[in-house]
């Protein structure tokens, strides 16, 4: 299983999904109406490392974090 966490203002509990890569996760998240509007604006970390490759393979136990637009300071 892959654990998906939504950070900051995204009002969604963590979810557990069976996917092989980020592209597959993307399709699942697009199905959720509360999540879909965020996706274009969100960055992604896998196991706390920021990722750039939308095809990145995932393996059991991976933790995916969804990071919405930021404003520190």
């Amino acid at each position, binding site marked *: 299983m892959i654990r998906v966490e939504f*950070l*900051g*203002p995204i009002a969604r509990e963590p979810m557990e999904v069976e996917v092989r890569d*980020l*592209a597959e*996760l*993307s*399709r699942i*998240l*697009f199905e959720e109406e509360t999540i879909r509007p965020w*996706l*274009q*604006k*969100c*960055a*992604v*970390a896998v196991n*706390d*490392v*920021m*990722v*750039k490759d*939308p*095809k990145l393979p995932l393996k059991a136990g991976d933790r995916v*974090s*969804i*990071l*919405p*637009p*930021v*404003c*520190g*300071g």
Partner: protein
Amino acid sequence: MMELYNGPLDVKEIFGRWLDEEAESNYGAYIPFVGTIRAEGGIEALSFDIYVPVLRSWFDAWQARAKERGAIVKMAHAVGDVPVHSSSYIAAVFSPRRRVALELIEDFVEDFKANAPIWKYDVIDGRRIYAEDRSTPMEGAGLLADGQKSE
């Protein structure tokens, strides 16, 4: 060094302690940036969420970048509510020379603003409202939307 605090920062304590820590390090320039909550839009406070593991990586990468130029960076940030006219954020550069310090503090603060995993909320009548209009997508945002399009 990266420091996180619940609620507003004790600015004088942090400034003075950082000064003391580097008192013998032979740096010629110390530039802190102190960010304070402005009274505007009827807010009583701002409030912050932080994703610490990614913030720590971001900070460590900056420390390495500063080191290449003979400098160091420090930062402190608040978690949770920070009332108007108190401080949520201090970033600082110590460097042997003025030019490097002036360049680094600007880049450090701007990159922080754009890429540190911190979420800001206005606090109005005790309610927390995401500061969406002032927030910026992080570098690499849209990855999951791209994934969808590539099908």
